[in-house]
């Protein structure tokens, strides 16, 4: 799909949990060519401290409404301004950007592991996996009960295993402490979340020799493969996480030391 720059219209913006919002925007162009794992570069207007665009994963696509969902965690002035978008406002996006997750093949057992705003790309991925006839399972980790992000859309697609760091809901600990993660057989693990989580998941997968893709959130200036600011050291040299990624197979990353 060709990249485009477009003013989309905000249809809805709802608070999911403290500091987390889901923004729904509608497009006048066809959105169905977007692949799971791809992201957008959002223009934040009217924030004096936001000079560059903000990269955000495609959280979901609703083809019948032709809407795109973003799951945004307030991290600073840019995301704060986005969290105050009101229906009817325009949101200028450059999209779709980046590569995408490798979909499983029939009969494989797949686990989608994530936490916080790292859950963002997993919903659309799960939907695509589900559409391809494979059942996604989810391992989702949160700091505590109050930080759990609504997961109805997730459970509609497959079983959800939860962990909280303080044990206030689900298993106590990190996603990697979820028993199903270690005890069951997985052909593929897809992960997006805070770097320590992704590294822990990667380590586990490497040990058990499971195919694992992670989606990185490196700092980006352009999102178009131009500025070379978002580089990741890989086995084939410095690659751009905005064009060669954000999705990487853990075997290509130079993270292995932590495994």
């Amino acid at each position: 799909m060709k990249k485009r720059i477009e003013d989309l219209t905000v249809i809805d913006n709802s608070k999911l949990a403290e500091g987390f919002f889901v923004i729904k925007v509608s497009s006048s162009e066809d959105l169905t060519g977007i692949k799971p794992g791809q992201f957008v570069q959002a223009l934040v207007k009217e924030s004096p401290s936001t000079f560059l665009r903000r990269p955000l994963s495609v959280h979901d696509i609703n083809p019948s409404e032709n809407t795109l969902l973003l799951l945004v965690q307030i991290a600073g002035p840019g995301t704060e301004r986005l969290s105050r978008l009101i229906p009817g406002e325009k949101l200028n996006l450059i999209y779709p950007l980046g590569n995408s997750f490798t979909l499983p093949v029939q009969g494989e057992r797949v686990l989608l592991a994530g936490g916080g705003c790292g859950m963002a790309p997993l919903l659309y991925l799960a939907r695509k996996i589900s559409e391809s006839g494979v059942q996604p399972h989810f391992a989702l980790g949160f700091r505590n009960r109050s930080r759990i992000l609504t997961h109805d859309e997730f459970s509609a697609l497959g079983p959800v295993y939860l962990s909280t760091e303080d044990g206030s809901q689900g298993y106590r600990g990190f996603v990697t402490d979820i028993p199903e993660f270690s005890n069951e057989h997985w052909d593929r693990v897809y992960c997006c979340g805070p770097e320590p989580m992704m590294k822990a998941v990667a380590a586990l997968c490497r040990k058990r020799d499971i195919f694992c893709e992670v989606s990185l959130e490196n700092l980006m200036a352009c999102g178009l493969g131009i500025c070379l600011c978002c580089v990741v050291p890989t086995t084939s040299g410095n690659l751009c996480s905005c064009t060669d990624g954000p999705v990487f197979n853990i075997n290509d990353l130079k993270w292995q030391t932590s495994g």
Partner: protein
Amino acid sequence: MADLRIKIGPLELRNPVILASGTCGYGSELEDFIDISELGGIIVKGTTLEQREGNPYPRMAETASGMLNAVGLQNKGIDHFEKNIYPHLAEYKTHVIVNINGNTIEDYVELSRRINSFSAIPAIELNISCPNVKQGGMVFGTNPASAREVISAVRRVYDKTLIVKLSPNVTDITEFARISQEEGAEAVSLVNTFLGMAVDISNMRPKLSTITGGLSGSAIKPVALRMVWQAARAVTIPVIGLGGIMNAEDALEFIMAGATAVQVGTASFINPRAGTEIVAGIEKFLIEKEIDSVSTITGIINRK
């Protein structure tokens, strides 16, 4: 219709808007958004003789109305360029200029010699102003004697249009503009990025892996504009102005201050169509003001 054509040495550009090196890749990255041929020209990524991995991550930090980068000239080297990139570039219907970099004078000379033979590259931009490399780069661009030496050496081997890209990190920009002219450059372009830094107070460390990096974007426009104005009064060769140009109004400020052409840099990250929109905006301005040709307003503030 207004006449937007301008000349840089022997080179005629259909309009004065050029995409700046390091901010437009090799052009193809922007092809989904714009028709490269509508531009006056593009200056492709900083190129070196050998392949370079650049600096470690993090290489970027946002600042008020600007950004710092510390890319460090990551590129695959001239061989790769010739084999894999040049064939595509040769198809663009606009001027494609290569921005060249080296650690030593010999590097610059060798690279210029190579590029001299690429028939579809009518000009080079001699980058003596990259702040993000330990050797070469800004070291040449902040020392008058070194600047003279490298420009003169390149001039001897390069017989097409030579543009020297100046560093703003100097006391007197006119000195470097004059040296470029004296050594036979057809034009100077300024500015490259300002050496800056940012600190992450939460972990009490610099935000960039290299501590310092190059500042670009709107923040630098007033200083860049002043330098372009100074340089344009100091030399007779064309001055190509850049630094914080985000829209046609900004571009017009540089032109009125004396820039024959302008380059659009960081703006393309925020609006990949910035370059062609600036072309359209300049034309619109001229038509509204009933001015026939862009050259009428070049340096006009000095004449009013």
